[in-house]
C-alpha cells in the first residue's frame, strides 16, 4: 500500500474511533481544552498584570536639590553622570517652576505659598527614571553618593513607593509561578490520565490487533493521530473560549480594563497565542497518547 493510502487508513481509523466512542474523546478534549484555556488566560493575565504594575507605580523620579552657590560646571557634570547611570532624562528645575508645581500639588493648601515674601526653593535636578533603573538597592546607592557631593543639599526619590513597587512585581512573579505550575500539573496529569483511560478502554482492540499480526507502530499510529486530533480540537476550542472571554472583558461590563488603563482594549497577540495553544495542545495530546499507548502495548 502506498504511503498516502496508509496515512489515509490511519486517519480513517483515528477518526472512526473518535466517532465510535465519542464519550472518552469528549472527556479528553474537554480536559485538554480546559487546561489550554487556563494557559491562555494566565498568559494574557500576565501581560495585563505587568501593565498594571506599571500603572500602579506611576512616574518614579529622583530630585536632587542644589546649593545656592553650586558651580555650573559641576552641576552639568552631575547632570550627565545621572543621565548615564540611570539611562533616564535629567531636567534642571528653577525655583519658580518648583514653587508653581508645589502649589498645584498641594491643592487647597497650596494657596499659602502665594503669600511667601520670596521664593525659598533652591534649584534642583529632576531625574525621570525609566523602568530598568527602578531598582531600590542601586538607586539607594546612587542617592547616597549624590548626597555626599558638597554642592548638593538633599536627594529625594520616593524610597517607599519604589520598594513597594519592587515587592508587587516580585509577588506577581511568585503568584504566577504558583498558578502556572498548578495549571500545568493539572493539565499533564488529567490529559495523560484521560488518554490512559481512553486507551485502557480499548486494550481489547490493541490485544486483537497484535494477535492478528500488527506491528507496534501500526497499533500506535492511530492512537497518536487521535491524540494529535484531540490536541488540535482542544486548541481550537480553547482559542474560541479565550477570545470570547477577552471580548466580554473588553465589552466594558466588568470595569477590569478601565482599571488597567488600557482604554478598554486588551493587547493580545492572537497569532502568537493561537500558535502556542495549538503547539501545546498537540504536544500534550501526542505525549499523553504516547505514554498511554506504551502502557498497554505489551500483549
Amino acid at each position, binding site marked *: *500500500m502506498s504511503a498516502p493510502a496508509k496515512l489515509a487508513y490511519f486517519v*480513517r481509523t483515528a477518526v472512526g474511533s473518535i466517532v465510535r466512542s465519542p464519550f472518552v474523546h469528549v472527556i479528553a478534549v474537554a480536559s485538554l481544552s480546559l487546561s489550554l484555556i487556563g494557559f491562555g488566560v494566565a498568559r494574557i493575565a500576565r501581560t495585563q498584570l505587568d501593565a498594571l504594575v506599571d500603572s500602579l507605580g506611576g512616574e518614579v523620579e529622583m530630585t536632587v536639590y542644589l546649593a545656592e552657590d553650586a558651580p555650573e560646571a559641576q552641576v552639568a557634570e552631575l547632570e550627565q553622570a545621572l543621565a548615564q547611570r540611570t539611562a533616564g532624562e535629567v531636567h534642571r528645575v528653577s525655583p519658580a517652576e518648583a514653587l508653581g508645581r508645589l502649589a498645584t500639588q498641594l491643592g487647597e493648601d497650596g494657596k499659602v505659598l502665594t503669600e511667601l515674601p520670596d521664593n525659598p526653593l533652591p534649584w534642583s535636578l529632576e531625574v525621570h527614571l525609566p523602568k530598568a533603573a527602578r531598582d531600590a538597592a542601586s538607586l539607594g546607592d546612587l542617592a547616597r553618593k549624590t548626597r555626599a557631593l558638597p554642592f548638593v543639599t538633599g536627594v529625594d526619590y520616593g524610597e517607599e513607593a519604589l520598594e513597594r513597587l519592587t515587592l508587587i512585581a516580585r509577588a506577581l512573579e511568585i503568584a504566577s509561578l504558583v498558578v502556572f505550575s498548578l495549571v500545568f500539573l493539572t493539565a499533564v496529569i488529567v490529559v495523560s490520565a484521560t488518554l490512559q483511560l481512553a486507551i485502557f478502554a480499548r486494550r481489547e*482492540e490493541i490485544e486483537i490487533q497484535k*494477535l492478528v499480526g500488527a506491528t507496534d507502530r501500526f497499533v500506535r499510529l492511530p492512537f497518536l493521530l487521535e491524540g494529535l486530533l484531540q490536541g488540535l480540537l482542544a486548541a481550537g476550542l480553547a482559542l474560541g473560549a479565550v477570545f470570547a472571554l477577552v471580548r466580554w472583558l473588553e465589552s466594558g461590563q466588568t470595569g477590569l480594563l478601565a482599571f488597567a488603563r488600557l482604554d478598554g482594549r486588551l493587547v493580545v497577540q492572537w497569532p502568537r497565542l493561537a500558535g502556542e495553544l495549538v503547539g501545546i495542545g498537540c504536544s500534550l495530546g501526542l505525549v499523553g497518547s504516547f505514554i498511554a499507548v506504551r502502557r498497554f502495548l505489551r500483549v
Partner: protein
Amino acid sequence: MERPPDVFSRRPSLSGTIAPAMIQMFHVSKAYPGDPPVLVDINLDIEKGEFIFLTGPSGAGKSTLLKLMFLAERASRGQVLLAGRNVARLRESGIPFLRRNIGVVFQDFKLLPTRTVAENVGFTLDVLGTARDEVRDRSLKMLRRVGLEHKADVSPLKLSGGEQQRVSLARALVNDPALLLADEPTGNLDPALTVEIMDLLTDVNARGTTVVVATHDATLIERYQKRTLRLEKGTVVADERGAKAARLMSQTA
C-alpha cells in the same frame, strides 16, 4: 521494515532441499509463574499441509499448546520451531510478521464489539496494508463462505454464539494463512453447521494450509479420521496417525 519469514512459503522449494516441518516441538514444557506446569515435555512434528485434531479433557493444555504455536506464550523449556525457524531466537519485533502467516480462531472468539462484523474480519487484512476496497471485498467473500454475509454490517454483540464463532473463523481465514489454529471452532454450532464448517476447513487444508483443530467433539474425530493428538494433564498420551486405519476398519467391520 523487517522481512516476513518466507519459510512459510507453500511453493515447493526450488533448490530441491527437503521443506522443513510446519511445527516442531522438542521437550517443550510450559509453566505459568507460581502454578504447576501446564505442559510437560511435549514432542511434536506437524508437517506442512497436515490436518490435525487436538483433543483431551478440559484443562489438559490444548489452548496453551496452541498459544505456543502463535507465540501468545513462550515455552518455559524446550524448543519450538515454526516452519523450521527456532522461535526462541526470534526478536520481539519479528512476531507480527510471523503471525501474519497464522490464522487463529480463539476459544472466546475475541471480536471487537465496536466494529462491524465485516470490519472485524477485515482486521487481518488491514494489518497487512491491503487496500480498503479489497479488504471489504475479501471480507464479504469470506463471510459468505461461513454463511454470514447478511450480518456484515452488524455489531458482533448482536450475533448469536455460533454466528460469532463463524466470524472469528472468517477472520482467521481471510488472508489465506499458511497455518490455521482453531480452538474449539464448532463448540457453539449445530451438527449441520459443524459439517459445513469442517468442509470449509478440509477445503482450506486441501489448498495447502496446515490446520490444527482443538476439539472435544468425538463425533468429529470419528467422522473425519485425521491424525489426532490426545493431551492429558499436559502430555501427549496418544498420537493416532497409525491407529487411524485400524479404527476405520473396526467401524466399517
